[in-house]
């Protein structure tokens, strides 16, 4: 490494990684819910 990544930038990346993981988890759960309800709705209609 020949450029200074700076401490603030490294710490922020750790924070960003946590936040983005959370966002990814929330969107996965949301998708799971969506597909679950999509599965239910056609059955009721039938």
């Amino acid at each position, binding site marked *: *490494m020949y450029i200074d990544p700076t401490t603030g930038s490294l*710490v922020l990346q*750790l924070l960003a990684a946590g936040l983005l993981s959370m966002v990814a988890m929330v969107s996965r759960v949301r998708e799971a819910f969506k597909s679950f309800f999509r599965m239910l709705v056609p059955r009721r209609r039938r």
Partner: protein
Amino acid sequence: MSWQAVEGSFRDPSGFVYCRDATLYRQVNKVFGKQFEAFITSGLYDELTREGLLVPHTQVGLELSATADAYAVLQPERIAFISYPYEWSFGQLKDAALLTLDIQERALSKGFTLRDSSAYNVQFHGGRPVFIDTLSFEPLEEGKPWPAYKQFCEHFLLPLTLMSKRDIRCGSLLRTYVDGIPLDFGSRLLPARSWASLSSVLHLHLHAWAQGRYAGAAVSSAAKGKSMSRTALVRLIQNLKSAVAGLSWNPAGTEWAEYTSDNNYSEEAARSKRALVLGHLAGSGARTVWDLGANTGEYSRAAREVTPQVISFDVDPAAVERNYRRVRANSETGILPLLLDLTNPSPAQGWAGRERLSLAERGPADALLALALVHHLAIGHNLPLDRIAQYLSRLGRLLIIEFVPKTDSQVARLLLSRPDIFPGYTKEGFETAFQREYEIKGMSRVADSERWLYCMTSRHFAVD
């Protein structure tokens, strides 16, 4: 055999670029030998060059090295014209940013990472951006964050966000801040609505805050033993990618954006001018043409029919952006649109004023086109004709220049709101001024107009 270092590649201790007998080489120093070997054998180099993302090289013998410290010597494919981020349009900077992130994503998948993410690592070659720094890759140390994250934000994300959300002219800040726009400064310039975007908040505003908060703190104590997985790194890169991809700018409403459709040429005049330009160029044998004041590149494309490389300069960000979009949309090669204010051209700058070359140092071009330009310089910017002739004579060997007289409606428009203090702006005055620096080879009147087209050769290079 003597060699000459290429300024701008001396900051990285892993190697440097130099010229020997007019051939360009990159030396890999012994200190970086292991990392370079790992990069080559990983297949990443092959993948990136195959996809046209990284400039290819040939490995040559160590007898061509510059110093005894050489591990390997590479001969990279030569880039026709070196341009700098402050000369790029919005779309060019955005494409360069996406290229850098694409390369980092591919590198991560092969267990490598980019050591730096400078915008100067990208050049435009064959109509598209290409990464030029072969020594930017090193094996990924699991758990470590991306060391080039801050540099990426300062070189790419922040300038693009400012250009998109504040004002397109913020791009010119890259000329002052050659190491990237400082995050704290850029964060203050961004509009309030930037706080509504998660990416802007995270990568720019909070990033700027963290710089201040942890200034002077050691990494080990601030990070408290936490590490960053490869998945988290990939997620960060993907988020940066979507942030960059989501930025846009509509190139309209600037002074010159509509010039091509808002000029006073009749069809016959335009046809005649095109034929005259092509006639002079075709017979000249010119291989590089600089089209000064190219607007959206109409005559650059005409010139491209008879020359392999045209650099299409204009002062207007919208015109350059439209020109670049045309290049990309039609996969045009040999035309490079760039931003240039000829009244204040790119200077030599960086360390010792030698790291980044001035416009003149990157020449001379074989031929210059200065079409419908001289009246803007002479009347619009009060530049005396002899000074215009002096500067142009050092930029290119051949000059194809259009003289637009005061009776022309475009010149009359320039004089609408100001007194005519230009008694010397006449066809005779123009010829006298230019004959001091040039030998006039030919002149013709553009049909169905009062304009004249001249072809001249610079005395500056004839003396050399």
